[in-house]
C-alpha cells in the first residue's frame, strides 16, 4: 500500500504573521478601551432602554403630526434626489479626469483622486455645516452637502469602473483614428454604464440615509423633527420619525435593488 500524503489541516503562521495577528488584537483591544467600552454599562442599559421604549410607544400617530412629518420626509427625499442627481452628473467629467489611462495625464489623475479622497474624508454632516454657513439654513444647504458627498463617492467609483472595462472596443476605435474623447464616449462609458447605474443607485440610497440626519444641523429635512422630539422629551413623536425614516430607507433600498436587477440584469 502506498503512503498517501495529507496536508496539515492548519498552516502554522510564520513569525512575522504571528506578530501581525498579535499586533492587530492589541490595536482592537486598545480601541475598545478608547471607546469607553464598559460591560457594566451594557448590563445596566436594558432597563433604561426599556424605559425609553415605554415612553416612546405608542408612537405619535396624530394626523396633524403625521402630515407635518410626511411633508418633512418628502422634503428629505427631494434633498436626497436633487443632491444625488447633481452629484452623479458632476461626477462623470471628474471621473474621466481621475481614471488612469483615459484622457488625462497621470499627474492629473493623481491630483483629482486626492481631491476626491479629501471630499470623502469629510463627513456629510460636516459638509452640511459648511454649506449652512455658506448659503444659510434650509434644504439648499443639505442638497449641496449631498451633492458634494455624492461626487466624492461616485467620482472615485466611476473612475474605477472605467478603468476596469474591457479595453478591446476602445482599442478597435483607437485603431481607426478616433480621438481619445470619442473613444471614451463611444466605447468606455457605454461599457461602464451598468456599473455607473449600480453605483448611482447606491449613491441614492446613501443620499437618502444621509439626508434624514442633515436637519440636525439645520440643513433641511426630517432630521430637525428628530432633534426637536428628543430635545422636548417628546419621545412618541421622535419614535414616529425614526419609524418613518426606517420605512422610507428600507423602501428606497428595495426599489434600488429592483431597479439594479432590472437594468443590469438585462446584460448578458
Amino acid at each position, binding site marked *: 500500500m502506498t503512503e498517501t500524503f495529507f496536508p496539515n489541516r492548519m498552516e502554522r503562521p510564520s513569525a512575522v504573521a504571528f506578530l501581525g495577528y498579535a499586533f492587530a488584537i492589541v490595536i482592537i483591544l486598545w480601541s475598545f478601551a478608547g471607546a469607553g467600552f464598559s460591560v457594566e454599562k451594557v448590563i445596566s442599559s436594558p432597563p433604561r432602554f426599556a424605559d425609553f421604549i415605554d415612553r416612546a410607544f405608542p408612537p405619535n400617530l396624530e394626523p396633524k403630526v403625521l402630515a407635518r412629518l410626511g411633508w418633512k420626509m418628502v422634503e428629505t427625499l427631494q434633498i436626497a434626489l436633487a443632491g444625488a442627481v447633481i452629484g452623479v452628473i458632476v461626477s462623470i467629467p471628474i471621473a474621466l479626469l481621475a481614471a488612469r489611462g483615459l484622457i488625462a495625464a497621470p499627474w492629473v489623475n493623481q491630483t483629482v483622486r486626492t481631491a476626491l479622497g479629501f471630499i470623502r474624508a469629510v463627513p456629510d454632516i460636516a459638509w452640511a455645516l459648511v454649506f449652512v454657513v455658506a448659503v444659510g439654513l434650509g434644504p439648499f444647504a443639505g442638497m449641496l452637502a449631498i451633492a458634494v458627498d455624492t461626487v466624492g463617492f461616485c467620482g472615485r467609483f466611476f473612475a474605477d469602473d472605467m478603468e476596469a472595462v474591457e479595453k478591446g472596443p476602445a482599442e478597435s476605435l*483607437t485603431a481607426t483614428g478616433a480621438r481619445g474623447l*470619442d473613444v471614451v464616449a463611444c466605447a468606455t462609458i457605454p461599457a461602464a454604464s451598468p456599473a455607473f447605474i449600480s453605483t448611482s443607485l447606491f449613491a441614492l440610497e446613501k443620499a437618502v440615509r444621509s439626508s434624514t440626519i442633515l436637519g440636525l444641523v439645520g440643513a433641511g429635512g426630517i432630521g430637525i423633527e428628530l432633534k426637536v422630539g428628543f430635545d422636548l422629551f417628546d419621545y412618541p413623536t421622535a419614535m414616529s420619525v425614526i419609524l418613518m425614516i426606517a420605512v422610507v430607507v428600507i423602501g428606497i433600498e428595495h426599489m434600488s435593488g429592483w431597479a439594479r436587477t432590472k437594468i443590469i440584469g438585462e446584460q448578458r
Partner: protein
Amino acid sequence: MYAPCTPTLVSLSSTTSSVTDLLNKTRFAQAQPAQAGAQFAPVLPVDIRAEGLAKSFGGHQIFSDVSFGMSRGEAVAIVGSNGTGKSTLLRCLMGLIPADAGHVTMLGTDIGAASPSDMRKLRSQIGLVSQKHNLVPRLSVLSNVVHGLLGQNPGVRHWTQSFAPAASREAAMAALQKVGLVHLAQRRADRLSGGQSQRVAIARALVGKPKVLFADEPTASLDPAAGDDVMALFFSLAREEGVTVVFISHDMSHALSYGDRVLGLAGGRLQMDARASSLTEHELRDLYD
C-alpha cells in the same frame, strides 16, 4: 521601394528534413529593392514597411530584427505559435504600442515620428477586426458601425447613429448590407451570435473604406463553419475594395488560401516570409514544432 512578392525564394523541392533548413529556404531576402524582382511582377506601392522591429515586455524579448514590406492590395498571413508575438507585432505596426527598436512606415507615414494628429489621420485609413469582435455591447449594431467613421469624422454626431449625419448612416447601412445584416441594424450588439458579431466588426472596419485592414485571429472565437464563412466574406470584401490585408491565423488552410504571403514568427525572429502558393499545410505546421 519593396517588391515583397518577388522574393529570392529557394525551391522547396529539396530536402525538408530540417525545419530550420526549410525556413531558411522559404525566407525572403528582406527589404529587397524593387528591381530585384521587377522581372517577375509589377511594382506596386508599398503600404507597410517594417525594419528591424524589436519588442520586449518586462525584460522578456518577444521578437527582434523583424523586417518586411507589404505591397498595395497584398494579403499577408502572420502565423506562429502562441506567445511568439503575432498580436504584439500587429499592434506595433498600427502604432498602438511602441516598438523598442526599428521603424514602421505605413502609407508613407513614419509611425515612430508621427504626431498624435498625424497618427489619427493615418489610422483613419486603416481598419481592425479583432478576435473578440470588440463591439460595444449595449449599443445598437448600427451605432457600432457608425463608430467606424469616427477617425474621419470626429465629434458628438458620430457617437451614436441617432445623431449621425444622413451620409454616415447610409454608409453604415451599406456596410451592413455587404455583410448581410441590414435586418439587424437596430439590434443590440450583445444580442448577436458570434458569427453575426464578427460580421458587424467587419462592417465597422470597412465602413470608412480603409486602405489597410488588420485582422487578429478573426475566426478564433467561431466554430469552423462560421469561421470559414467570416473569412470568405472578409476577403471577398477586402479584395473588392483592393485593400491591403494583414491577418493573424492559427488556421493553416486560411493562411494558405487567403494569404498571398505568409510570415512566420518563431523563436523571437521572423523565420518565414514566403509565397503562400509555395507552401503546404504540412510545411507550415513545422513552424509550430
